[in-house]
Every structure is written in C-alpha cells, then in structure tokens.
C-alpha cells in the first residue's frame, strides 16, 4: 500500500470519532418553583425587606406546597413562617423553612427507599431512580445545610455522611481495569454494578437524621429543652 493509501486508511479509521464528536450542549439543573421561592424569601430577609418576603411567601410556591403537603408536614409551618415574617423575626422564619425543606427531603428519601427495592423493576432502573432521588433530596437539603449545621451540627454531619455513602453506592465503586503505570497514564476505571437494595441503608440513615432535625427544631421540643 502506498503512503497516501495508508494515510487515507488512518484518516478513515478515525472518522467516526471525529464526525460523531458533537457538542450537544450541557444541562445545568435549574431551581424548581420551591427552591426558587425559598431563595427569594432568603434574599429578601437578608436585605431586611420583610414586607417583600411576606408578599413573596403569600404568593409563592413554598406556601402552596405547605398547603398541598399539609398532611405529610409538621403542623403549623405556614402560620409560623407568616408570624415570623410579620414580626421581622429572621430566626423563626429560617427555622420554619428549614423544617419545611427537611420534611420534603425526608419524604423524598422515604419514597426513594421504596423505589430502590421495588419488585418487578430491573436493578439498573432502580439504581438510576436512586441516583435521581438523591439528586432531588440534595437539592432541598443543600438549601438548609448551613442552617442545619448551626442549629444541629451533629445531625448535619450525620446527613452528609449518609449522603456520601449513598452517592458512593449509587455511582458504583470504580475498579481499575487497564492500569498502565509504565506510561504514566491514569488507570481506566469502570463502575462495578451494585445491588440497589444496598442503597436503602444510607437512605434510612438520611431519613432518620432528617426526622431528628425536624424533631429538635419543632417549637414544642425547643420549649422543653
């Protein structure tokens, strides 16, 4: 084969990769209505604009969700938030919103526990669902992590540790399959499939820690302590 022929063969061999390497855009998860409304409330309070925050609360997704999910949330959250905003009491509003988001995250965690162990669904689909649930739980918990770490540092650490464990399982432990130490390149890794049922244990710990956070932050418990 001539030099030109060899060059053409090499070029054609690499063609699918070159022609298929398209930039299709990246996706950055956006706030949902609740997290967006929570941030509006938080920033309004930080600016000491409690009247604005109250209006945003009355018309916003947080209050709507508090009403829709009333049966699955601690009682009195809406009233406590409104009272805190009316009295310009940032601490009380922060507490009520923290309990609200912790309860939403806990409910998601409980649902995740059920779905990762759901019979009749393939392990890959259950693990994929587990990862999506963890993402959704973290979206809410991340908003209150700072407040939780100030009010209940041990619980905050417990949530984070359990979350790390769950994420590690959901991603799957990486096993080196093509180490090439001589060339100095990094070893290629492939995720090892994990039984989705194993996710239930860290999920259980997350739910328990969030339940404790709700408990210690409720007005009754605070009065007794």
């Amino acid at each position, binding site marked *: 084969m001539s030099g030109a022929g060899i060059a053409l063969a090499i070029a054609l061999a690499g063609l699918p990769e070159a022609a*298929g390497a398209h930039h*299709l855009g990246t996706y950055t998860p956006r706030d949902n209505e609740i997290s967006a409304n929570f941030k509006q409330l938080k920033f309004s309070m930080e600016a000491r604009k409690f009247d604005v925050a109250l209006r945003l609360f009355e018309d916003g997704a947080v209050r709507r969700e508090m009403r829709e999910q009333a049966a699955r949330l601690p009682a009195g959250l809406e009233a406590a938030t409104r009272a805190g905003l009316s009295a310009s009491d940032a601490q009380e509003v922060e507490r009520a919103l923290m309990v609200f988001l912790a309860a939403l995250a806990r409910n998601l965690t409980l649902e995740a526990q059920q779905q990762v162990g759901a019979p009749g669904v393939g392990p890959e689909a259950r693990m994929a*669902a587990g990862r999506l649930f963890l993402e959704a739980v973290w979206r809410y918990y991340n908003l209150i992590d700072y407040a939780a770490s100030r009010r209940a540092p041990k619980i905050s650490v417990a949530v984070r540790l359990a979350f790390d464990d769950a994420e590690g399982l959901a991603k799957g432990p990486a096993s080196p399959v093509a180490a090439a130490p001589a060339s100095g390149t990094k070893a290629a890794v492939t995720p090892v499939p994990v039984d989705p049922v194993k996710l239930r244990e860290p999920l259980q710990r997350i739910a328990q820690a969030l339940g404790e956070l709700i408990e210690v932050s409720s007005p009754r418990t605070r009065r007794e302590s």
Partner: protein
Amino acid sequence: MSASSGPADLARTWRLPPPWALLAAILLIICAEVGGASMARFKLEIARWARSLMLARPDVHGLVGVRDVDERILDEALVKVDAGLRLFHLHAEGMGLVIIVTTTVAATLVASGRARTALIVLFTVGGAGYPLGYLLWSGLIPVVGLTRAKVIAEWLIWIPFGGTTIVALWWLAGAVALRLRRP
C-alpha cells in the same frame, strides 16, 4: 460535468459550482431560517408536544412518578429538544455557506473533471445532510430518550454525512496543496 463559468472578468478568477449545488445550499439556508422562525413561534406548542410524548413513555425516560424527581428529567429533555432545534438552525445556516464556498473552491481549483464532480457531490450531500441530524435528534428525544436519540442521529446522519464532508475537505485540501506545488 462542467462547472459553469461566471462573467468574462470573473472567469479568470472564480468558477461557479453547478446550479444544483447552489440550489441545495440555498434551500438549506431557507430551511434554517424557517426552522429558526418556527422554533420561536411554536416554542410552547413544541414543549407541550414533547412533554406529552415523554409523559406517555415513563419507562423510556426513567420517570418515577414523583414530581421533584420527574420535573428534573423532563426539564433536561426539553432543554435538549430546544437545543437540537437551535443547533439545526445554526448548522443549516452554516453548512449552506460551507457548501457554497467549498464547491466554488472545488469548481475553480480542482483540475480533474472527475475529482471536481466527486468533490462537489460530496460537499453538497454531506453539507446538506449533516444539519438534519440535529432535527432528527431533537424529534427523537421525546420518543426514545436522550441517549438512544443521540446514538441514532449519530449513526444515521452525523457520522455518514459529517464524515463525507470531512473526507471531501481533506481531499480538497490535498488537491489545492498539489496545485500550489506545481511550477
């Protein structure tokens, strides 16, 4: 096939590609403009259509029946559907111009008649077909999911048509280089 000549003074410098190549390029640019306008005009309708298709196929998209989880999945897919339409608009405009420029260069600088014809065909087919991959990708996302839609678009359109254009570009570059080396 013989490339048509331009006016007398231009004939010494540039030769026009065949009319069908120019027509393909212009049609592609028109499609890009119509696509862009439709995308803006029917944005809501397209989003609703895509969303309803996805909701009808929960297994394909991994929907779990919990709003906080599913909204994130649907949102990502809708963003990608929109991105596919935008990329179609962008690439169809761009590839239309690429066809005009590359076929003009080939018609002018490639001496061999067969090579010239082959290059013009490759540039026109590859350039006109490639942007359709984005349209296909966008349309398939709600039906078969993000990953499968990409694989199908890649193997049906992007790789064959994109590959055709890349081969033609290297060929043209080689032909032009050879011509420049001639005394």
